[in-house]
Every structure is written in structure tokens, then in C-alpha cells.
């Protein structure tokens, strides 16, 4: 099967998948008690009607659903209900780059540090170079970001005054360091453990033993022969992880006051901002599908034994 053929089939499956995601999200949200324009103060019915008419909430649900799908097919995610005169497309256009920058940097940092630490730990198995980093890796996975985030702020912003305690400022480096670090920590720990496990398996496999027996230096063995098979499990992990960080980490965004998608999603759910929540859910679906596809392609490229099949 050619790559193009493979891509075509996968994209064809993506459309019904997204339809199911959009339908479920739409249905669940509309089934939740309380509407977007409910407040403690009761609105006269005539005014409520005029607001609802503006957002087509007065129509039967099936018609709202079809209208939504139609707009969605045209790439229009509709108006946000909670932020007057702002469209969901606009919110995503503003928020996605923030999450993309913070998320990519965090994953990149995690990949580099985790990869190196994991490899070293595997090479020096059962020594201090293995035990100490792996202790911190378990710690890194176990301690949630809502603890590490405020802790980083306390140390580096409140006590030492080295770095700002949050804010975005168009991605200035000073403002990126703490959120990227906080987001990268659990990923680093996870990757380090994963790389260590994979590396140990690869290092004990016959083809590496052969390479070593031929007298190749460790550097060459690791980089030329072991690296590709070690990366294999990472690839399937990184696909969904990347989709995850792109749609924002709600906690990182709240703790550091970043204008990313995650916070929109949270306030959207609380305020019953139907279009915003469905929009971000669909976006997440698109990204998951996209990155899984990329992961599969990488897989095939990394391992000649893998054949593309849908």
C-alpha cells in the first residue's frame, strides 16, 4: 500500500470520527442543566427570547445541530456565548499559538532531558546514575503540576525575584521559563523512564551485542544502532501528547495566567458556552487524529518491519 493510499483511507475514517465527536459533545452539553444565559437575575422572557434568537437557541435542537454541522463543515465554529461579539474561531486563533509555543518547548525540553537521562540510566543500570534520576522521575510523575507550578512561582518569583510570576507578553523568554518548566517536568520524567526501559531492552538485543562485539565505541552503538529502536515507543506517546499540550493545560494556564485554550474550555464549560466547548472538543479530535497519523508515518519510517495498513 502506498503512503498516499494510506493517507487517503485514514482521512476518510477521520470524517465520521469527527462527526461522532461533534455530535456527542453537542448532545452532552445541551443535555446539561442550566443554559448559557441563565443568571441569578431573571431575565424578562421577551429579552431572553431576543438573546436566544440571536444565537438560534430558540430553534428546535435538531435544527441547531444541523446548523452547527453546516457551519462546522465551512470551518466556522460559531459565536462564543460567554464573550459577546467574539467568535470561537477568533478565540482559538488567539489561544492556540500560546499553547503551541509553551507546549512545543515543554515537549522538546522533555524529550532532550528525558532522552539523555533515560539513556544514561540504561547504560549505567543499577548504579547511582540510574537510581538517583529514576527516583526523581517517579517524583516528577507523581507530583501534579498544580503543586509544582505554584512552588516554582514561590521560589523563583516570590522569594528570589529572578523571574516573573506569570503573564504572557507575546512569548517573551522570561515569561516562558516557569510555565515551560512546570509543564515539562512530568513529561521529562515519563520520557526518561520510557527511554530507559526501551534502551535496556534494545541494549540486550542480539544486534547490539554484535555491534559491540565488533568493537564499536559506545557512542556509535547508541547513536547509529540503538537510537531508532529506542525512539519507537516514544513516537506513539508523543503523538497524543502533542495534541494534548496544543489544546492547552488548564492548570498551567490558570497558575501562570496564560491566555491559552485550556482556560477558555474550563470557563466555557462552567458558563455553558456550547459553541466554544464543542469547538475545542472538535479541534482536539482533529489534532489527535492528525498526530496519530504522523506518529504512524514516523513509525513506518523508523522501523522497516512496519507496513502501513489501515
Amino acid at each position, binding site marked *: 500500500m502506498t503512503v498516499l493510499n494510506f493517507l487517503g483511507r485514514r482521512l476518510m475514517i477521520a470524517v465520521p470520527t469527527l462527526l461522532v465527536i461533534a455530535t456527542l459533545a453537542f448532545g452532552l452539553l445541551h443535555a*446539561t*442543566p*442550566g*443554559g448559557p*444565559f*441563565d*443568571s*441569578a*437575575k*431573571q*431575565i*424578562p*422572557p*421577551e*429579552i431572553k*427570547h*431576543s*438573546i436566544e434568537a*440571536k444565537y438560534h437557541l430558540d430553534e428546535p435542537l435538531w435544527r441547531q445541530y444541523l446548523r452547527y454541522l453546516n457551519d462546522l463543515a465551512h470551518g466556522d465554529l460559531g459565536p462564543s456565548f*460567554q*464573550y*459577546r*461579539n*467574539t467568535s470561537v474561531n477568533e*478565540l482559538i486563533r*488567539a*489561544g492556540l499559538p500560546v499553547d503551541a509555543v509553551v507546549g512545543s518547548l515543554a515537549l522538546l525540553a522533555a524529550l532532550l532531558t528525558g532522552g539523555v537521562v533515560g539513556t544514561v540510566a540504561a547504560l549505567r543500570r543499577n548504579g547511582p546514575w540510574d537510581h538517583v534520576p529514576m527516583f526523581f522521575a517517579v517524583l516528577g510523575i507523581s507530583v501534579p503540576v498544580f503543586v509544582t507550578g*505554584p512552588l516554582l*512561582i*514561590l521560589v523563583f*518569583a*516570590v522569594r528570589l*525575584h529572578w523571574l*516573573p*510570576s*506569570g*503573564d*504572557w507578553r507575546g512569548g517573551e523568554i522570561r515569561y516562558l521559563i516557569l510555565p515551560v518548566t512546570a509543564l515539562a517536568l512530568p513529561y521529562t520524567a515519563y520520557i526518561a523512564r520510557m527511554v530507559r526501559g526501551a534502551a535496556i531492552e534494545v541494549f540486550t538485543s542480539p544486534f547490539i551485542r554484535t555491534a559491540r562485539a565488533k568493537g564499536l565505541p559506545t557512542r556509535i552503538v547508541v547513536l547509529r544502532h540503538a537510537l531508532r529502536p529506542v525512539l519507537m515507543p516514544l513516537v506513539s506517546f508523543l503523538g497524543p501528547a502533542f495534541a494534548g499540550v496544543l489544546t492547552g493545560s488548564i492548570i498551567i*494556564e*490558570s*497558575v*501562570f*495566567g*496564560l*491566555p*491559552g485554550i485550556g*482556560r*477558555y474550555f474550563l*470557563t466555557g464549560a*462552567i*458558563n*455553558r458556552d456550547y459553541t466554544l466547548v464543542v469547538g475545542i472538543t472538535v479541534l482536539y479530535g482533529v489534532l489527535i487524529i492528525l498526530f496519530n497519523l504522523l506518529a504512524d508515518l514516523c513509525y513506518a519510517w523508523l522501523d522497516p518491519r512496519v507496513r502501513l495498513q489501515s
Partner: protein
Amino acid sequence: MLAGGLLGVMLAACGGDAAGTVVPAAAHIRVGTRLAADQTLIRALDTMPRSFDPSLLTDVDAQKVTDDLFEGLTTFGLDGSMVPGVASSWEMSADGRNWTFHLRPEARWSNGDPVTAADFVYAWQRQVDPKTGSEYAQALAPIVGAMAIATGHAPVASLGVEAPDAHTVRIALNSPTPYLLYLLADSYMQPVHRATVERWGDDWTRPEHWVSNGPFVLREVIIGNRITLVKNPLYWDAAHVRAPRVIYYPLDTLTQVGRFMAGDIQWASIFANTQYRWLKANLGDQVVIGPYLGISQLAVNMLEPPFAMSRDLRLALNLALDRRVLTEKIGAGVSQPAYSLIPPLPGYRQQEPEWAAWSDERRHAEARRLYAAAGYSAAHPLRVQVDYPTGEDNRDQYDAITAMWLTNLGAQVEPYNEEFRVLLQNLRLHQSLLFQDSWIGDFPDPFTFLQLFQTGFDQNFGAYSDATFDGLLAAAAREADPARRYGYFEQAERRLNEEGASIPIQYYASKHLVKPYLKGWQLNIQDRMVSRYMYLLEHEGQ
């Protein structure tokens, strides 16, 4: 006729200023004060405002921002009292139903246009027009015709407001409304620039189209991150506005505290009650709490058993609660215990029930007597659920409340928390028997609280209905004399206490963290502190 200037002074004096001196309207800074070189104000909001259109917004955070951006006929003084805004003076007719406001001719929009009487008439008509979709059109209910228009039964032009000339506004009211001056300052009665609204439609609130008449204009909005205002050089009192810029950051509770301690914001507007003692120990005078115009209370469903038919049971639950434990032990001493509906208001005599002063033993004994009189006992205990909205400090509070009912009465009440919107829907359908019914007053007047128990009022979630009580409110509505009007309200509040209409818990507090070098503000019961008066002293780390 009552002269406007004089009324302004009276209100300021009522604002809790014992010496009776008039607080200056603007930031008049003493000569020799050493000011910081950069006067940029950096303040926090609790949530991202949903709109900056004063006619559309409903949230407190948006109001904080529009207080800086717009100016009504009246506006907030340094101490939160009402001072002249666009109107420099006003008169009220003897019956209290007709008001005439005289606009200052120097008032300007940020694009240079004069602020005229027609701008106000337009804004108010727009506010009540159902087509606008304002979620709080009923704020204008005291004005003749407002509700008929808002409910689609009368044309917009029939609103009881007129502009006989460019600098005069007349307002006709349904009944004497002493709190009109407070309504006029608030977002829903602030003016909007007609040409801008009509040209850009909903998009007029974008910074690139922005026109407003307040001390500041909107420069930049990044949703979920920051709102930047810059000084409006055309504001009539711009000479007294110190800050060239105000930056608002919408931040979560915990994040606000961190940012404040790092010195990245100068003003935090919230912290969790559980943090209060720690913050006080670490930040000292930078932690500021004050009384706030709001009450946390429990209300009961008056349509169904067990509460509808048993005043004894309602009173038993009421008397069995130890408020001091709730406010001091559970609430860390931030809020004040409440025994009656209406928070402390200037000029109003709070009507606490007699038992508020009793010893715990005596109160508990009476509660047990009432509980037994209502037909409940250890063998036949009250079993009911108390519904409250999910929230920061709520869970501890309700665990303690239900424990008190169990210990003091033997009543088995189960705390049950729900998301606010879900709870609200249940309340609208009268599906809850016992529930939290918190209320923040719209203006400092007893009526904003008492109406909660008025027959037919939208937010009367317990469907409480009492002809005596309604009669007292009706009498107050007809009364033009402020003292006699308050007299009716005092009777009405006593009636609620006797009937056990609700179970008051605590009066809310306003909570702030403020840097010691930020001056030009005073605590006030409405918690309105506008940037117009604020300035920064010289300080370290500038």
C-alpha cells in the same frame, strides 16, 4: 425641591464619615507627597469580563472595568458614595417621582464629541429595548414604562426619560426611589456613544472602535490574559487622574495571591478565607477586609412540607446555628455573623431578633423546644437535604452547619453541593426544600434585600408569600420621606425574623491585598474602588 449638591453632601456624610467632612471627588494629593515615577496601576479581576458594553454586561468584574471607562450622571466617590458625574447638579420634585439633572457642558466623549442629554436617553432606551438583549434591563424598573418596554408591551420611546435640551435630563419614576442616584452611577445607566454603537454594531466595544466618556479608554483586550486601559485626556476631570495606564489581569484566586506576593500586581481582589490568617501573619496591613453589601443565608421552600407549614421548624433550624463558630472558626474571622437579613447600612437600624444576644445554652434549649413543638424527636428526626453551590469555602461551612443541626437538634440534614447553574435551575422550578440563597445588593438600600421575599419577585426562590410583609413594602414604595420609608423596612425585616422566613448565616466581606504604596482608595460597602483616584507613592523596586 431638594438641591442636588446638598443631597450629595448628605449621602457622603451618611457614608460612614463620622466627622461629617466631605470626601473630595478627585485625587487631590497633598503637596510634597513623593510619587512613583511610573503611575501605571496593575489590578486583578476574578474572572474575564464577558463584555465591555455597559448595557449588556452583568458581571461584577466587568463593572469594575466599566467604572473606569464610563461615567454616569452620578459616579462613585473616593469612599464609594455618590458624587456628581456628568451631571453637576440635580433636583428632585417634592413627591420624589421626578428628577431633573443638569449636565456639565465640558463633559466630552473620548473622540471629542460633547456628552449630551440625548446620549443618556439613547443608552437607557437601548438598555430596556428587548432587541438589545440586555440581561439586566430590569435594573431600570423604577423608571416609568421600563418594564412594559422590556417585556415588549410598549414602544421604546415611551420610557419616562427626556432631554428638553442638550444639557438637561428628566427622569420620571413610578414611585419615590431614593437609591436612584446609585442606579445612575452603575454600568446599566452609563451612557454609550450612539454614532459608534450604530456604526459598528456589536463590534463597537473593540479597542479600535472604542469611544467612552470616563477617565480611561479601552486600549487592548486579550481574553483570558489582560485588559489595558489608558487615560482619556478629554475626560472633564483628567487633570486629577494620575494613572496613565491601568492594567487588569483576570486571575484565579490562588494565582492572584502568588502574583501579588511576587510584586507583579499591586491589587488582588480575592483570597480564600482559609488563607486569611496566614496572609495576615505574612503580609500584615496589606491584607484588607471590609464589610460588603451581601448576605449568605439559607431559604426554605414555602410551597411544600416540611417547612411551608411549620414556622416552629424554620425557627428551630435558625436558632440551632452557632454563627460565631461559623464565621470565626470555619470562616477564619473574615465575615460577620448574620442574625437578620439586612447588612449594616448607613442610617438603617438593623432588626436583630432578641435571641441573637442569648447564651448558646438558652438558644439551643429554645431551638429544641421548637423542634419538638414541630413534631420531631429522636425517634422521628427531620430528614432533609440542604443544597448549596460548589465553591471555595462552602464545603467546610455546610459540614459545620449540618453537624450543628445534628448535635443541637438531632436533625439529619445532608449537605449536597451542585454546580451553580444546576442549582439555579432547580431553584427556579422550586425543586429544592432547603438551599443557599446568597444575595449581593445592587445598591445600598434595604429594599434590594427585602424584595427577595416579596410575593411574585423573580428571585423569591422559596416562593415566600406574606400579605403583612408585602403590605409594608408597598407602603414603603409610596413613601417619599426617607426616615418613614426606612421605618416600614424595619417593620418588614422584623416580620421576616418572626416568621423565620430565612436562616441568615453571615454578611459577606470584601477581601483585598493592596500594596502599601497604592493610595487613593477607601473601603466601602459596595466594594467600588475606581482607578480614577488612585496613585502610587515612591517605593522600592520600581
